[in-house]
């Protein structure tokens, strides 16, 4: 899929909820990866001084992340695999945030181990997986397809496993413990061949350990002898050679063990579910062969665990995931880390030789560093501000409340924000974005057109602009629901309240529009899903609640309707189905199990859209431009927006067309997991198309100036001269033909004060009926597209490297400086997305000085020096040009910039396998170049592009 959409993220001041369920540190100790209950994966940067900054958040899973593991030889490719509760698996590049591969299998994994045996295996290696299914699955690390499985004589779920690699035994084996407590051993290296030939491989050893609920098994790589087995109430050390019990210890009351690891020979660390850990020394190395578990008395005397150190956390937490990173090489630390369900990370630096105090009592190791996402957000205020915080000047003194619901109306370019205090703020989306991103600008501050409508007395929970979904609704209607079960139907322009419905059914969770082929009687009606699991049908025309289905015991998952019987089919979360007769409002049937499935299947085509995904919308906009209709029913990103936001997918084609006129989309994202962010999506290809077409139709004069300019520079290239001259002539003649009139038009468009545009646009919209709107849209678009393009370029340009260049951009191109760093989004495919988090820019500060806040990498500095040279020349040229010409040139340069961006993004997509493009394309190229052996192919392709950009500039 070609994807030229650029995404910029506007975070709110609240960090997304991130209840950590899985955690790992990459082998280079630079990246921390955390998976969450909400389904997102967070990437953090760990500096050499053990400072942690958040880098990016990866969207893609629609259910809780259950496990994380490396997916390749990390030095070659920084890939990490993640498994989710619903069987999704993703391989991510943790340096760039790309989703490399994803798949959905019917298996829920609890642990994944990467295994590669270079001399026996072809391909990228195996992912050995265990979880809520029988035995161990072997998944290909590259394709994520199930290759085979390790079978067992008495199959059961495997609760934990580890790979035993020992030079002494000369055989890699997999040690696993089943749910029933059987320890099983499979040969790994010697069974590679038989696995590849799809033969059944059974375990070589099996032994019952007499306990249940095992959570971890570890092999001591120092002695290559000891096996540590941890279950929730005790831990045991076995001799790996004969499986004799050497040592055991039970946990204190009210604590449960969660895992452990060997620190060194005879020294181990055990941690508990509530985030405590204990370091033990196994005294008197109990390895002497004479001892066996039968002679219990003797055993106890010789091998006793002695507590050396302990760590603890202050706050009591629901549950923790902890792990230990043991690196023997010098620059690396021994790190004990944990993440808990409130999203807090804790790090401990474990000393190389932990010792107890002189009197033998254990030492408490202090927490080295601790952080949450919210702290990162608070620290980087400029990247995490509310979207409408800028609407009021400080002098007004009115602080707007937190946004609890927001909605973007593409056809009006309006952003509607529902606030915590019940107010609804309506503003222009692009302006809000500009005000939020760009540095103080006299034209922008304080004078943004916005309206505040009251009406609700508690926080607004849902918003609906019904016209976007079906044209039978008036384009001026806006419907909002609040926490107190009231629904207000009002005019979006004037704020006049037509009617207020009061339902007494808890908070209004969703407002939905029924499908267009609904019967006439229910002409203008909307559905609302309430927090008491009820569904109400409101008739707007007659201003009454038509019927209210209140019987549901579980939250409503799907809404469908039966076309023949006029029935509403409600699917609940417990997989039961309720069929309501719309006419009478009676419950016709209640079914569970197979029958419920069959009913839902029967009404498959008559779904009332309840789900939505971010990228789906971008996909949608793309689809419109290409007019190819793909039947992608992937609402996978759902978790983020799962069931809660209404579908952006318009059921109506006429509305779609107004969509396609919008190369810029403003996407509010909100979900039950309290993520509130806004995505700015720029469709580069479309921006370019629109600008060019406007240039071709109304702005011929711009062409003429361009060629006029080209004539001057053409001197150097004598061969091209005649050609350019010729073009100049034709352009010149055109200029004479329609020059004077169009010149005025263009000038007006370009120089029109910014805040006026909004006013005029609104004015126009007011008057416009449906018919002339489409005619006018062309002209309106030029302004909008220009502004959008400029905003995008503002985000991408390397500010602060060259003062003159900055000035040039601000003065002549009208591209304004940024207020702070921008967080970009990176779209891997339809439902995999990487969003940078506040604080990402500090990551590079290790290497690059702190003199610019929009530095992507060193490469940018190199580029910018070249670039500034070009700009210098251009500037000289500009001096000679008159004022209005420079305005023309502005548009030209803008176009040129965009063209190059598009070009780079496309090439990147082609070359870098699944590499997509974001604002930080240069960074990506660099990182790729470092990693790939075939980098020559990259480096060769890269300079032409940059030089192309530069030459392109030169030619002006």
């Amino acid at each position, binding site marked *: 899929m070609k994807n030229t959409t650029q995404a910029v993220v506007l975070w709110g001041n609240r960090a997304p909820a991130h209840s950590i369920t899985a955690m790992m540190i990459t082998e280079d100790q630079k990246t921390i990866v955390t998976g969450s209950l909400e389904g997102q994966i967070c990437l953090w940067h760990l500096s050499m001084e053990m400072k942690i900054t958040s880098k990016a958040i990866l969207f893609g899973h629609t259910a809780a992340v259950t496990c994380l593991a490396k997916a390749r030889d990390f030095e070659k490719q920084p890939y990490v695999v993640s498994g989710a509760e619903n069987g999704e698996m993703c391989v991510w590049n943790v340096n760039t945030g790309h989703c490399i591969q994803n798949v959905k299998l019917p298996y829920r994994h609890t642990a994944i181990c990467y295994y590669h045996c270079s001399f026996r295996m072809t391909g990228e290696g195996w992912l050995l997986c265990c979880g809520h299914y029988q035995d161990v699955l072997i998944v290909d690390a590259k394709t994520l397809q199930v290759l085979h499985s390790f079978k067992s004589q008495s199959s059961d779920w495997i609760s934990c496993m580890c790979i035993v690699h020992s030079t002494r035994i000369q055989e890699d084996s997999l040690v696993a413990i089943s749910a029933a407590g059987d320890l099983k051993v499979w040969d790994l290296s010697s069974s590679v061949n038989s696995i590849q030939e799809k033969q059944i491989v059974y375990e070589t050893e099996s032994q019952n350990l007499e306990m249940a609920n095992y959570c971890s098994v570890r092999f001591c790589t120092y002695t290559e002898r000891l096996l540590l087995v941890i279950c929730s109430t005790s831990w045991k050390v076995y001799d790996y050679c004969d499986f004799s019990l050497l040592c055991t210890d039970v946990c204190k009351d009210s604590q449960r063990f969660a895992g452990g690891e060997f620190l060194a020979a005879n020294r181990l660390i055990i941690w508990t579910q509530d985030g405590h850990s204990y370091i033990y020394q196994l005294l008197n190395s109990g390895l002497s062969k004479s001892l066996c578990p039968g002679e219990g008395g003797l055993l106890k005397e010789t091998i006793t665990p002695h507590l050396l150190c302990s760590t603890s956390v202050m706050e009591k937490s*629901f549950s923790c995931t902890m792990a230990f990173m043991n690196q023997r090489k010098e620059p690396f630390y021994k790190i004990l880390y944990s993440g808990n*369900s409130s999203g807090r990370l804790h790090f401990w630096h474990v000393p190389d030789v932990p010792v107890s105090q002189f009197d033998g009592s254990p030492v408490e190791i202090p927490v080295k560093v601790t952080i949450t996402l919210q702290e990162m957000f608070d620290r980087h205020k400029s990247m995490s501000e509310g979207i409408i915080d800028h609407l009021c000047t400080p002098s007004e003194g009115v602080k707007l409340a937190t946004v609890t619901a927001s909605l973007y109306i593409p056809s009006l370019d309006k952003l509607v924000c529902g606030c915590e205090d019940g107010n609804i703020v309506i503003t222009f989306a692009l302006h809000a974005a500009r005000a939020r991103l760009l540095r103080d600008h006299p034209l922008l501050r304080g004078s943004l057109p916005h309206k505040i409508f009251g009406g609700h007395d508690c926080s607004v929970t849902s918003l609906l602009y019904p016209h976007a979904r079906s044209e039978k609704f008036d384009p001026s209607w806006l419907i909002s629901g609040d926490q107190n079960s009231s629904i207000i139907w009002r005019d979006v322009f004037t704020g006049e309240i037509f009617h207020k419905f009061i339902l007494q059914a808890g908070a209004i969770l969703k407002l939905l529009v029924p499908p267009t082929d609904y019967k006439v009687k229910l002409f203008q009606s909307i559905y609302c899903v309430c927090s008491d699991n009820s569904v109400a049908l409101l008739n707007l025309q007659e201003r009454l609640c038509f019927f209210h289905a209140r019987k549901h015991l579980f939250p409503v998952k799907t809404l469908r309707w039966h076309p023949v019987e006029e029935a509403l089919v409600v699917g609940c979360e417990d997989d039961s189905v309720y069929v309501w007769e719309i006419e009478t409002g009676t419950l016709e049937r209640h079914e569970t*199990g197979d029958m419920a499935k069959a009913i839902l299947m029967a009404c498959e085509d008559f779904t009332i859209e309840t789900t939505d995904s971010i990228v789906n919308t971008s996909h949608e906009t793309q689809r419109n431009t290409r007019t190819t209709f793909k039947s992608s029913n992937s609402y996978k990103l759902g978790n983020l927006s799962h069931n809660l936001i209404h579908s952006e997918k318009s059921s109506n084609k006429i509305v779609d067309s107004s969509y396609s006129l919008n190369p810029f989309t403003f996407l509010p994202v909100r979900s039950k997991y309290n993520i509130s962010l806004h995505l700015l999506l720029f469709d580069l290809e479309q921006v370019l198309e629109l600008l060019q077409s406007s240039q071709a139709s109304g702005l011929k004069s711009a062409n003429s100036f361009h060629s006029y300019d080209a004539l001057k520079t053409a001197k150097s290239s004598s061969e091209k001269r005649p050609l350019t001259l010729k073009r100049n002539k034709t352009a010149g003649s055109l200029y004479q033909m329609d020059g004077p009139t169009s010149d005025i038009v263009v000038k007006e468009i370009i120089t029109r004060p910014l805040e006026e545009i909004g006013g005029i646009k609104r004015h126009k919209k007011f008057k416009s009926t449906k018919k002339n709107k489409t005619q006018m849209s062309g002209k309106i678009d030029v302004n909008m597209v220009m502004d959008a393009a400029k905003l995008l370029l503002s985000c991408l340009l390397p500010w602060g490297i060259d003062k003159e260049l900055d000035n040039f951009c601000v003065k002549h191109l009208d591209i304004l400086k940024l207020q702070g760093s921008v967080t970009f989004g990176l779209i891997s495919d339809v439902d995999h997305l990487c969003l940078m988090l506040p604080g990402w820019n500090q990551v590079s500060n290790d290497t690059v000085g702190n003199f610019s806040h929009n530095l992507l990498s060193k490469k940018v500095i190199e580029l910018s020096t070249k670039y500034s040279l070009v700009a210098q020349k251009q500037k000289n040229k500009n001096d000679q040009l008159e004022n209005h010409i420079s305005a023309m040139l502005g548009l030209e340069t803008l176009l040129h910039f965009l063209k190059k961006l598009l070009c780079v993004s496309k090439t990147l997509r082609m070359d870098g396998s699944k590499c997509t493009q974001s604002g930080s394309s240069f960074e990506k190229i660099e990182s790729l170049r470092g990693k790939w052996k075939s980098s020559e192919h990259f480096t060769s392709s890269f300079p032409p592009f940059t030089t192309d950009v530069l030459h392109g500039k030169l030619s002006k």
Partner: protein
Amino acid sequence: MATAAAASSAERGVLEEEFKWLLKEEVHSVLKQLQDILKEASRRFTIPTGTADGATKQENFVLGSSSTDQVKGVLTLQGDTLCQAEVNLKVSRTSQVLHFAFREDKQWKMQQIQDARNHVNQAIYLLTNRGENYNFQTGSEVLKLMDAVMLQLTRARNRLTTPATMTLPEVATSGLTKMFSPAPPSDVLLNFYVNVNKLCLLVYQLHALQPNSTKNFRPSGSSVLHNPGAMFELNNQRFEVSHVHKVECIVPWLNDALVFFTVSLQLCQQLKDKISIFSSYWNFRPY
């Protein structure tokens, strides 16, 4: 707005007290209740978990059907394993009675039962981790715990209510035929599965299709039950299902377990509802 705020300040205090009570007392009593129900459910699976009292008891079931008397059988179920099975198949063509039984040394694991049992044990494990002395700080903690428990319970229930769909070659290679002695004839396929509270046995009688047969060969897809006429290919030999016999027996404790699952799911949802009611009164951030 102002009046609403003033009126609610006193109300808020009361509500806050109530919410504290909910977290401190009510949640634990519900959790205790849940644990009891689920332990009862888990006991139905009669699995010796850890300290429980040793061997699982064996139960005999007679397979039958109202529509056909061509297949008869007796099964012995021990927890999640079929340890004995005797099947009598009357071939209508020859009116010859085929008899086959499990080999003495072999046992057949009913994966559905095993999975359901493991899911329940997971749910119990989640609950026991938050014992009496655990203090819930926020409502979201409870909601998360309930979500996790409900996920396990839903899976346990679905595992029993929705048998796996299999293709005929998968049935043929499942290894079930190897369990019997004497081995059933090559034109007979067998499949055991659980459907809600019933343990079912499917017997397919096949006839081989001639390689040059004019019949339009179309392999059938995945299904729980394949109807006569379904075709498949195995080891370059094409087969068609000529007869299907389904016999079943009701396992009472599976029914009990399913009832327990449903009751505990409702309890969980009720607790969730109780917690989320308070979100309407002030912004307590459920997540």
